[in-house]
């Protein structure tokens, strides 16, 4: 079983971002992302999107990366706790070489966001989460 977060992050390009608003109400969003390092997830979002507004109010997020199409019992998943924020547009090249600084700077409608991941878990053989570290 693959347990290296870096390798699992390379296998799937959509993460699910769990955020909460200032009242503590949760929200789940699929987000196209890149992971230049296992502790650095980058994505581009509209600051007015519900998850972006939640992050502005509460930077603590959780992230799951998994293949949603597999059959029951074949699941693997990477679970993460992270702190998220809008980040310096100059880093956009690490997200995707097709995106430019202008694409994530006013008056463009998107901004670059980064999650700093602090903890990682994978799903073990008995359906329990196992904490792992990047290799």
């Amino acid at each position, binding site marked *: 079983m693959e347990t290296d977060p870096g390798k699992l992050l390379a296998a799937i390009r959509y993460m699910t971002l769990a955020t909460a608003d200032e009242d503590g109400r*949760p929200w789940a969003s699929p987000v196209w992302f890149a992971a230049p390092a296992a502790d650095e997830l980058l994505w581009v979002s509209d600051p007015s999107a519900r998850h972006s507004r939640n992050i502005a109010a509460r930077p603590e997020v959780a992230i799951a990366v998994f293949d949603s199409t597999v059959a029951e019992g074949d699941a693997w998943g990477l679970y993460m706790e992270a702190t998220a924020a809008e980040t310096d547009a100059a880093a956009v090249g690490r997200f995707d070489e097709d995106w430019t600084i202008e694409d994530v700077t006013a008056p463009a409608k998107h901004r670059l966001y980064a999650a700093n991941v602090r903890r990682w878990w994978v799903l073990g053989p008995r359906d329990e989460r196992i904490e792992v570290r990047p290799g």
Partner: protein
Amino acid sequence: MNLDPRELLASIRYMTLATVGADGRPWASPVWYAAPAPSELLWVSQPGARHSRNIANRPEVAIVIFDSTVPNEDAQAVYMEATASQTGEGVERLSAASVSAGGEPWTAAEVTGSAKHRLYRADVTRCWMLGAEEERVEVKLV
């Protein structure tokens, strides 16, 4: 644009459940589920799992169902707000959905008494899908 959630609910077997802990910290869990109706999602979890403990503390959850393997341009997703709870009723509907998806049947004995799992349900209160400009569009569940 097809704004009927049933096709995705039938083809994507894992949802992501977003819950919040007593400290306000969100948590994201992939969970195998069955949807007897678009407004009723059923799953089996251990009560000690982090998402189950969060639900016991705060039943408001968010759910997203999408194909995590498709390219960006073709993305469609079902977003939901729901109220989740442990339930003693519906294991036969979950079992039927599992079997029809090629999985194993579930019995009441596997989700009661000394069994380590319990049956959970989410009653969906609001639902959205993505429109032509990738904006969320609210979908009325009938």
